[in-house]
């Protein structure tokens, strides 16, 4: 739990909380008890102890929790330390940047360390909440668009679209995030961030809440399922875990228009930017994890092009790149050197040889309203790496098409370089 901390004496958490491995960055002790409730609530969703006659049961009720509370200081190096702790199997992160700054924190290379050296080289499983801004999760941070992480969107109580969840081609999976009713989980007594349960006679100590929501609650559900998968098969790599979660997802909100992409094109796996490959399916994921043959070694195909192209004001520029190497795709990264006077005016999409489309940058909502206003004109996509999971299991061979659409007048831009990295097996 990389968060605000976990209450060490909570009756539903204390038996699963490993104090030897936990760390409190504020007082430099092994007691991760926080001053805020958020981490305690996330921890309960993952691993509130089961069958102990206490209030709730987590997704993985016999999983050891490690409480790390870098939010107590906010220091970059404390977050980075928390992300790279070598003995952690799964890193659950219900946080992100507080603005759409497109500014890499430098956190990604600590995650890379955890991927390369964690779990004896199998890689720590990194789970991140997509965020609650109703916005493009791909432009959130390079951590959320990375192939090393699982970015989780939220669905409401009946598996539908929430009013808040971020979305995009980097969403691997979705999970319940409240709305309405919200999530019942553990709580830090005395905290006033969101309500404790008021009307239950057996919650007089205020140890529980029924009002936790957001992608903050969706991400720990996926972390809990990942824990169950590793309990079923310790040999899974981080890539295996991602692959199994994606390929066992349950399609939800069946009539939602986001499930379609190009007319006449059939996806290998159905995908919806609001839900990823669907809602997490714990039962199917654990069954598939047992005896899963690990994916073969990761292959990277990288190709790039330098060209100075002026982008048409209110128009679309199309580019293409041919790939001759054949792999089954797991993840695609697109990096542009793109100077533009207002990136709030542009949309970027990548079309695979199969014809499926990743929308990587967009600034309009479903009704066409432009919401990238104000500060947006001070930021740049140049050098930023967009990620997409939506081409999973497609073959890489063929022509990849990049389209940059300028949708509003009086802004100008130039593309000078673009690179495509395709990862798979």
């Amino acid at each position, binding site marked *: 739990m990389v*968060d605000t901390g976990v209450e060490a004496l909570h009756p539903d958490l204390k038996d699963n909380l490993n104090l030897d491995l936990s760390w409190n960055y504020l007082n430099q002790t092994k007691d991760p008890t926080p001053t805020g409730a958020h981490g305690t609530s996330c921890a309960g969703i993952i691993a509130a102890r089961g069958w102990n006659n206490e209030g709730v049961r987590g997704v993985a009720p016999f999983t050891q929790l490690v409480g790390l509370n870098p939010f107590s200081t906010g220091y970059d190096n404390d977050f980075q330390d928390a992300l*790279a702790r070598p003995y952690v199997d799964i890193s659950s992160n219900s946080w992100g*940047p*507080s*603005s759409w700054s497109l500014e890499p924190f430098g956190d990604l290379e600590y995650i*890379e360390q955890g991927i390369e050296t964690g779990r004896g080289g199998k890689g720590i499983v990194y789970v991140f909440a997509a965020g609650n801004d109703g916005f493009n999760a791909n432009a959130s941070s390079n951590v959320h668009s990375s192939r090393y992480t699982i970015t989780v969107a939220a669905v409401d109580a009946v598996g539908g679209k929430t009013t808040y969840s971020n979305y995009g081609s980097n969403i691997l999976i979705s999970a319940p995030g409240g709305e309405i009713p919200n999530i019942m989980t553990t709580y830090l007594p005395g905290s006033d961030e969101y309500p404790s349960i008021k009307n239950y006679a057996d919650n007089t100590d205020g140890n529980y809440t029924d009002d936790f929501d957001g992608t903050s609650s969706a991400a720990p559900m996926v972390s809990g399922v990942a824990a169950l998968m590793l309990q079923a098969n310790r040999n899974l790599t981080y890539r295996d875990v991602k692959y199994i979660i994606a390929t066992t997802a349950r399609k939800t909100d069946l009539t939602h228009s986001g499930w379609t992409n190009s007319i006449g094109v059939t996806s290998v796996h159905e995908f919806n930017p609001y839900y990823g490959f669907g809602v997490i399916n714990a039962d199917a994921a654990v069954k598939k994890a047992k005896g899963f043959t690990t994916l073969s070694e990761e292959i990277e195909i990288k190709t790039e092009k330098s060209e100075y192209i*002026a982008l048409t004001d209110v128009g679309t520029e199309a580019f293409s790149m041919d790939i001759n190497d054949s792999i089954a795709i797991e993840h695609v990264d697109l990096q542009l050197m793109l100077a533009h006077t207002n990136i709030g005016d542009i949309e970027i999409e990548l079309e695979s040889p199969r014809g499926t489309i990743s929308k990587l940058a967009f600034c309009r909502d479903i009704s066409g309203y432009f919401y990238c206003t104000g500060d947006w004109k001070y930021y740049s996509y140049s050098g930023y790496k967009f990620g997409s999971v939506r081409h999973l299991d497609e073959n890489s061979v063929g022509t990849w098409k990049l389209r940059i659409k300028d949708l509003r007048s009086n802004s*100008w831009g130039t593309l000078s370089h673009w690179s495509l990295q395709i990862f798979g097996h």
Partner: protein
Amino acid sequence: MKQLGQFILYIVILTAFSCQLSPLLFSQTNKRAVGKEHVLKLKNRSPQIFVKSEDSEDAGLDSRINLNRSASETVIPQVYYRNGIQSESTRYITTGHITVSFGKDKKIAYKQFAAENKLKFIREINHLYHTALFKVLVETGLIQQVNLLNQLPTVRYAKPDWISPRKLR
């Protein structure tokens, strides 16, 4: 000829893009930070403008942050606003530390490096990229020192160890 035209247009756009970072052109919808402007020059990245705040509310924030560390590590934090926009999401606070990365397969004597650059070695924070945390010992200003370190050929990158704007989700 077409290529020349495109090149000229590219220069014009780059210039316009640079100019838009000027605090003089900030959107009127955002509160403008009052203070001295600093340019952070990270390696292989566009320069970033930070305005060091003189706001009295930020001074109060400083004292609260000071409580977060033991007395031996206490520093006087400084509040900077990226692009000069004063908001929670653009606020970066110094911790008195700098992160320096040397890169894969480039082992370095951290203490010697620290001594040569008026720093105190605290600890290695990434063994893959040989990245370490250093305490700043000079009074010249943290961003200025980061800029100097980024000019060293042995340094992959140096950056302030901020309290960056993050939020729970």
